[in-house]
């Protein structure tokens, strides 16, 4: 029984981590209607910026991490300036395909700037786990989970309640209509990428704290995909719930089904969930339901 509780809680916290990474997807989608395939690469890039600031330059954490967020924001802005500002108002297809080009490009950039070696990521959260009775909880995931919940509700409030957020929501609905209403699509997209890059860096800090880092860590981007899909690409707070669901299911499947089926059913299971969602309810739990009469 105590094992079950352990798996359950750890699954839930890993799920919240997925939710934070998925929030990067959702924010970019919610402010620019672009589906970002390079999300995993953004996470790894953010991780390397933190590593560079803290481990390589030797800055203390209290200066290094804020500087890393600034650098990530600048990187997001750079991506928008170089690629997406020229595509504002163009077809969404081209923009999404550009993110595929970005995936290859950022991966190359990481290899050029930081090399393929495995680096040890600085320990940002203390390593000792939190112990309650017989339940062991990794401290980084616990703090990360709390941060994720706060960020999730904060962003949800921003996109649903403030003027600036609603403007971006209009961009996500339709570029042309937003343009004709006098909303700057370019500015919205720029903000989306800045926010996406910063969130990815935050995700990298929580995900990688005290672990090893190389360019292959970008797989987390794909692992977070089912979470974004279950929530629906437009729902920010919904991502939290979806992350919990996917994380708990994955944790329990890894614990109880892996010994039976063998192999990595735990890592594939989110994708099976994803296929099921796509078939049953493609808009996810909280996504916008666009009405199409055919």
């Amino acid at each position, binding site marked *: 029984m105590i094992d079950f509780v352990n798996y359950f809680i750890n699954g839930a916290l890993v799920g919240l981590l997925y939710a934070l990474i998925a929030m990067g997807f959702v924010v970019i989608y919610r402010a620019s209607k672009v589906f970002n395939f390079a999300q995993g690469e953004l996470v790894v890039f953010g991780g390397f910026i933190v590593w560079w600031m803290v481990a390589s330059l030797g800055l203390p954490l209290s200066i290094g991490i804020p500087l890393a967020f600034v650098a990530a924001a600048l990187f997001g802005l750079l991506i928008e300036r170089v690629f997406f500002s020229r595509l504002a108002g163009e077809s969404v297809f081209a923009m999404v395909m550009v993110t595929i080009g970005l995936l290859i490009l950022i991966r190359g950039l990481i290899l050029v700037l930081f090399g393929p070696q495995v680096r040890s990521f600085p320990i940002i959260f203390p390593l000792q786990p939190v112990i309650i009775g017989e339940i062991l909880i990794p401290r980084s995931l616990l703090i990360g989970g709390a941060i994720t919940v706060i960020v999730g509700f904060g962003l949800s409030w921003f996109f649903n309640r403030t003027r600036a957020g609603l403007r971006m929501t209009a961009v996500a609905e339709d570029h042309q209509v937003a343009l004709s209403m006098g909303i700057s699509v370019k500015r919205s997209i720029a903000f989306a990428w800045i926010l996406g890059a910063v969130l990815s860096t935050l995700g990298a800090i929580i995900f990688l704290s005290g672990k090893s880092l190389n360019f292959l860590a970008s797989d987390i981007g*794909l692992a977070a995909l089912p979470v974004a899909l279950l929530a629906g690409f437009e729902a920010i707070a919904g991502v939290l719930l979806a992350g919990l669901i996917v994380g708990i299911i994955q944790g329990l499947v890894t614990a109880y089904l892996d010994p039976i089926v063998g192999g990595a059913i735990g890592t594939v299971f989110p994708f099976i969930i994803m296929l099921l969602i796509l078939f049953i309810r493609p808009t996810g739990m909280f996504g916008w339901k666009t009405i199409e009469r055919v």
Partner: protein
Amino acid sequence: MDPAGVFATSFERDQALIRTRGQCVALVLLFVALVILPHVLGPRLVAISTNMLIMAVVVIGLQINMGYAGQINLGQAAFMGVGAYATGALAIKFNLPFWLSIPFGGCAAAVFGFIFGLSAVRIKGFYLALTTIAAQTLFHFLILNLPQSWFGGSNGLTLEPAQIFGFSFVSETSIYYLCLAVTAAMVFGAYGIVRSRHGRAFVAVCDDDVASGLMGINVVRTKATAFLIGAFYAGIGGGLWAYYVRFVAVDQFTLFHSIWFIAMVIVGGLGSITGALIGVFVIKAIQESFVTLGPSIVAQFPSLGGDVVFAMMNVFLGGIIAAFLIFEPRGLMHRWNILKRSYRLWPFPY
């Protein structure tokens, strides 16, 4: 468009693939060049050419699926892998000759692709692309977790060389000719498909699926057919790959490979079979020249290190893909068509 003075006087002429004598001559010259190529080039270049021919088959499949029918497919490498594994398993377990195992491998991939194409019943657009990512992970999971006696699991499959009438395709040159023959047939088939009613249905669905549904096209069936054909091409390419490398392993068919295939389609030009061929040639040539020039660049600038040169290739190619999407979304083929049109109309532009 046709050059001045060329008019189609019958339906057959209007539908013909080869429209002028110049095109006929160019095609024959190209074919002669491809046939004598292994006798002129060194073994390494022949190996690269063989690789290009195999990729060409896979990318043409993706072109039909993505360029014509407009269904984004991020799982083409998985479909290729299914073809390669099916071909390998048939050749090893049932001792089928290659001229049976490769087509069966293609059919196996087609069935796998068709299943994912069927999801078009419920979903479209980028959501459909996500199911193909799921195809990629499922493919890896299945191969690694099915009983090892079926597909070799993590050990991969090792094949005997392809054999016909006692002749076995061992040498680089002979496997090149095998790939050339198959690729030529597949290219010809692709031209046939895209000008048939199915090809026209693909283009209609790509342009607007609501409108094409109103015109009486069965949209779901068309999308699923596009996946079927695209995956069949990928499977044939995978079968050739299995006989070329004679070793099949899961990590030859990753999501990253699928992304490269998409890059080839984008650079060559969406919606053109010739564009797919050009895309394969250009991207593969850039990759290989980086690989070839890499050591000498490192020798010139020892401080760079070998890794940086290969990483630069990724930066360069990623930049190229983005640049094409921003400045020329219709690819190299569109540029070529503009050029052709302008010299055909010269000196009277109207």
